[in-house]
């Protein structure tokens, strides 16, 4: 017992003590993987991907399209059309794999980066831009696609998800792995430090709520590396709360799909929460406002490029599923088309008018607000014809 500060995790303790694994270097990470970075399929004792190559082609298409959407949004930001953009670059497999595992009745609580999951749920990508363009704070109706509004306050949505799942319980919407309902809460590695996220774990565990906690560990919370949040792998957090945690290769869309589906089934059938740590990498900046060269090495990025979530599926499809250029070209073309539509849609987004927004504060407007709105309208009108 003579380690220095900060030292490695403690030695093994007696059986009445909680076991602790030593911190793992990212190079020797253990996780569920079904498709290697080289595009080779591998077996795992507990998880299998049983669907056909058509499904994998679908995943490929999804990933390419959301990356294309993401690239276009970044470009729109660079050109001043968006105030900000939070790119999902590198996290496509984590989002498509988990998003495609969802059933129609499952409910999603995203952060601000889940553009891929939004895509899976059928949210119009144009709707995602409003928040970043500054025309709204979430243009879609969560009920339309079972996809809640983006939540910017870190971790807050994990409690919402848990409460929603408790609602599913109360509606007797669980108890059956296929037809039951589940909720999935997305959050980041940084978010895992928030009190709210840990309270969500407690609630979910105590009430055995049908919620899957899906943590995209992209190694960074803005400039802070994962070791500012935890000294052990994040998926092990779940053990402290009494439910299973699993780490999956978040750049492997097949494994992410398989692991998420199993967790969703557990939730739907009434077996309670699961924590999934999707081990991935934020290949871009935190947002377009961020400059990652200030805090991380380019080598790191180069290293992760070899694990690109899309490349490996491309390799698999061309090598093992006899998919030819035509398919890839078509997807590429489809992406360009969507991107062009997105761009046109963005530019055509009408500017909002403040006077319309007073009425959204309350269902039943207050006299104070009505007065302020009238004053604002009269005041604004006094400038008309001036400009």
């Amino acid at each position, binding site marked *: 017992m003579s380690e220095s500060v900060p030292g490695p995790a403690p030695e093994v303790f007696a059986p009445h003590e909680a076991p602790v694994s030593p911190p793992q270097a990212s190079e020797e990470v253990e996780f569920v993987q079904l498709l290697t970075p080289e595009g080779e399929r591998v077996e795992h004792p507990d998880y299998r991907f049983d669907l056909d190559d058509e499904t994998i082609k679908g995943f490929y298409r999804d990933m390419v399209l959301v990356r294309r959407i993401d690239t276009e949004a970044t470009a729109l930001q660079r050109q001043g059309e968006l105030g900000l953009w939070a790119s999902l670059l590198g996290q496509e497999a984590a989002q498509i794999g988990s998003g495609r595992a969802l059933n129609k009745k499952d409910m999603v609580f995203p952060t601000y980066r889940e553009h891929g999951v939004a895509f899976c749920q059928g949210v119009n990508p144009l709707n995602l831009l409003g928040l970043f363009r500054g025309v709204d704070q979430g243009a879609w109706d*969560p009920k339309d696609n079972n996809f809640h509004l983006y939540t910017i306050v870190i971790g807050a949505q994990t409690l919402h998800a848990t409460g929603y799942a408790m609602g599913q319980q109360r509606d007797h919407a669980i108890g059956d792995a296929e037809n039951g309902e589940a909720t999935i809460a997305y959050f980041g590695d940084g978010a895992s430090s928030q009190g709210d996220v840990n309270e969500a774990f407690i609630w979910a565990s105590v009430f055995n709520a049908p919620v899957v906690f899906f943590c995209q560990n992209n190694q960074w919370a803005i400039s802070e590396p994962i070791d500012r949040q935890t000294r052990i792998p994040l998926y092990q957090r779940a053990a402290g709360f009494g439910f299973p945690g699993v780490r999956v290769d978040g750049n492997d869309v097949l494994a992410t799909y398989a692991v998420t589906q199993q967790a969703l089934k557990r939730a739907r059938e009434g077996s309670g929460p699961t924590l999934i740590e999707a081990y991935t990498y934020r290949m871009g900046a935190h947002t377009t406002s961020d400059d990652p060269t200030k805090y991380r090495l380019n080598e790191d990025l180069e290293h992760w490029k070899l694990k690109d979530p899309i490349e490996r599926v491309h390799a698999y499809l061309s090598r093992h599923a006899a998919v030819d250029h035509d398919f890839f070209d078509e997807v590429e073309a489809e992406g360009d088309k969507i991107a062009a539509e997105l761009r046109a849609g963005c530019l055509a987004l009408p500017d909002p008018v403040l006077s319309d927004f007073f009425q*959204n504060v309350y269902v039943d407007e207050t006299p104070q607000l009505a007065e302020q709105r009238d004053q604002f309208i009269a005041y604004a009108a006094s400038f008309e014809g001036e400009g």
Partner: protein
Amino acid sequence: MTKITLGKAINAGLRAAMEKDPKVLVMGEDIGKLGGVFRVTEGLQKDFGEDRVIDTPLAESGIIGTAVGLALRGYRPVCEIQFDGFVFPAYDQIISQVAKMHYRSMGKIRMPIVIRIPYGGGIGAVEHHSESPETLFAHVPGLKVISCGDPVDAYWMIQQAIESDDPIVFFEPKRRYHEKAELDEATPPTLPLHKAKVVREGTDATLLCYGPMVKTCLQAAEAAVEDGRNLEVIDLRTIAPFDLATIFASVKKTRRAVVVHEAPYSFGPGSEIAARVTEECFYHLEAPVLRVTGYDTPYPPSRMEDDYLPDLDRVLDGVDRVMGY
């Protein structure tokens, strides 16, 4: 007609709301078997089950955060915060989520959540158990903040709050939980939730108050009769958005006003009321709107609370001052 305490009136109101609408849930710490530390939820779990009357883990952010999720699922959660001083761990969820959801969603999402907070002093409690933090909610767009002054209002206002599709913070005057009044459950209230109530008509000055101070002000008004003063007393009932029309009409009539609350003076609820009344009634006022309030210190150890809290004498002192102009 039965005589009922304010605490039991809220209990009855909760029960009525739960009977009417199966989506109404009650959640909080110790609200099940114990019936809450003030017994306001007594018997509800027994009758409505653990799914609708939920003893939660001990974490206020969790209570409000999961209530948001339940509301998104179509439920109408009524959350109990055990004491005023313990609402702050939930503040982020209240301020950034509950209050803003309707606005952020451009009206698509509703948050019919009621947050019940027993508040205020006068019960000889230890620290964090006697605070009046209503301003910290009243300033937040998206919330409505109410308080009741008597058992009859307690019974109806809790039901009206639950029926409201806007989130409401309901400050319950804990030291009045045992005050009694006749309640006629068959006669629905005539006042809408956010209307103030003139509880005593008068001509010389207006006392503006709410919650526990309503009784104090009424007593002060009675005492003032001896001094030949006829005071009007208004129970605001809603602190935000307070009822402009009723207040302005009264002050324009009496030309003098004193706001009374337990919350600290500076940046307290009284400041907004004073500023607003002054703006609207500037040419009517014979004196500035004065405030009789708690002092700008943390709530003191309870042996000093009688000196800290506005009481009959301090209200009369305020009246003397406002009449002195």
